[in-house]
């Protein structure tokens, strides 16, 4: 008997008390969303919760977006900025730094030379202040939003905003690699003092664009 059979056999013997054919559905009487909000208010809540977790929040419209991105990059002065292959080109149309793409052959060490990254996002969750990336062409591979120290993430509001975690899961495709980001990387391991940025980006800037 191999280990698989052995473990499954043990499980079955251990569950001798469970009636055969039992199939009680799980009652889900919890809320799909906490509180009543207009679309506007949901976006405001997102901004508030993002800021509460020390992400820097900016608001703009489609026309101003390229200039805002330009200014945000200029403040940090990186020589290179990492962009995913499907990022709308107009977003970067005013930016100065040289754009680099994450290619299959780029090693993590090469990406470590790049200071900033600009991505889109799949869904943003207002109640928790969370951005979810799903690897779509405007977001790129998981590693690009991880290695650079400065991440600018653009969220289209209100389309990409949901109120709650249950609503976010409904929208996401589990077959894609997913990264949920709530504020910059942080640790509280040293006497519970919160320190930002251990391994992930130390600065997270979120642009809410209308």
């Amino acid at each position, binding site marked *: 008997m191999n280990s698989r059979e052995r473990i499954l056999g043990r499980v079955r013997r251990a569950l001798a008390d469970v009636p055969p054919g039992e199939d009680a559905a*799980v009652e889900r009487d*919890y*809320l799909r969303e906490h509180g009543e909000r207009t679309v506007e208010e949901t976006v405001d809540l997102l901004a508030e919760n993002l800021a509460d977790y020390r992400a820097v929040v900016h608001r703009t419209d489609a026309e101003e977006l390229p200039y805002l991105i330009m200014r945000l990059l200029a403040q940090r002065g990186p020589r290179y900025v990492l962009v995913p292959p499907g990022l709308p080109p107009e977003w970067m149309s005013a930016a100065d730094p040289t754009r680099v793409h994450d290619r299959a052959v780029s090693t*993590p060490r090469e990406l470590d030379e790049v200071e900033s990254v600009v991505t889109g996002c799949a869904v943003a969750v207002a109640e928790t202040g969370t951005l979810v990336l799903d690897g779509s062409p405007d977001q790129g591979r998981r590693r690009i939003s*991880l290695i650079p120290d400065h991440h600018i993430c653009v969220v289209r509001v209100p389309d990409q905003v949901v109120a709650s975690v249950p609503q976010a899961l409904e929208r996401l495709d589990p077959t894609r690699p997913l*990264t*949920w980001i*709530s504020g910059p990387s942080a640790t509280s391991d040293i006497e519970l003092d919160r320190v930002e940025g251990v*391994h992930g980006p130390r600065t997270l800037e979120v642009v809410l664009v209308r």
Partner: protein
Amino acid sequence: MSGTFVGMPAFPAAAREAVRDTTLRGNLRHATHTIRAKRARAVAELEDWERLRQAGMRIKDRTLRHLDRYLVQLEESVTAAGGTVHWATDADEANRIVTELVKATGESEVVKVKSMATQEIGLNEALEAEGIAAYETDLAELIVQLGKDRPSHILVPAIHRNRGEIREIFTREMGEWGRPAPEGLTDTPADLAEAARLHLREKFLRAKVGISGANFMVAETGTLVVVESEGNGRMCLTLPETLISVVGIEKTVPTWQDLEVFLQTLPRSSTAERMNPYTSMWTGTTDGDGPRAFHLVLLDNGRTDTLADEVGRQALRCIRCSACLNVCPVYERAGGHAYGSVYPGPIGAILSPQLRGIGSEIDASLPYASSLCGACYEVCPVAIDIPEVLVRLRERVVEGGEAVREGNKVLLRPAKGHAAERAAMRAARWALTRPGALRTGQRLASRTRRLHPRTLPGPGRAWSGTRDLPPVPAEPFRDWWQRTRGGKGDAS
């Protein structure tokens, strides 16, 4: 690394050491009280908390009651998504599987994201014995590993170390393992975190093999979920070419939708945040993103034995949030090491004796490492009735009875060392049902109080072994009442 717990003294002995350590107690009190208060606020934000808690309990119960079906489904989903599933009945088998997988890559070092399952099986030591270096990358785990120490808390494993001690460990040890600590390292948390960032980045960027655990595995989709804060998890899960995840079979949930419950209750219960900074979800392998090979090792190691006990089975619902540790008066004083297992606190007191059996002195003593105050049950996001299981296990220790070990039914005999415990219980019952005797005893105690030892002799030793005896008052309360209110009230 002295990560092994073999030969640990029983809880009372280990706890007696710990309560004398004032630094440890100070660090622990600060930590548990801070997290406790924050958690209460985070939970209060959700008006449907109690319903989420009930749903979490029901989902986990449903999973456990049909675990065979969900495990088979999980295996199918992971395989269909490009992963390879391995089954391990015990620690040795799991360690063997992982070692062989690492060797097959030709690598001699791996990066690890904090995983209680791999600590439970002693994976780091097993790899080391085969010439493979395993680097822990969670900041607290790094502190523990460099300090040649053992973790003391589920969530903040190095909570027993203060910043001065951490600075000393980094300065002394980092150079031995890779990039040394920067010159003139201070003890501010930001500086210490920066030193860890630099030290570990070097390892992340060259790592070819990553090893993880998982918080959840979704049977329906084959998705694995890791919840973390620092980004070391993301590094280990996405940069290496090969990813090996070692996960206890009880971490399964049936559907994708079930995650909506736990992603709300876990962060709030554990770090008291609305959401932890990073959550990674992956399903098998994805072309061009992340590891090219993914191996899932499903670990039994006593879980099916635990499942066989209809009362004790609920311990497998645990999502390792650590909320029960932070409210436990016994944990707060004794610290995590006294539990002699990777699972400390109230959950450790019910999980370890079930996973490992109650054959050893430490495991037989764990069900007594509690005051049965019930605070752990109140905070548990999956409503595990820890006191109920503790009482069940005490009964097993004292009375013996049926249990399952390694899949076989065994008949436990009453533990010898606990004859004293039974005697103590009888003595207490005798005194409490005879007020006159109790009063006389108290008066006698007052008059002789200068002669009292710090621990109780005879059957009382088990009790006083983990507590310092309170000083006996100069006058028993009843006498004081008689004297000051004598004649006015009825104070007999």
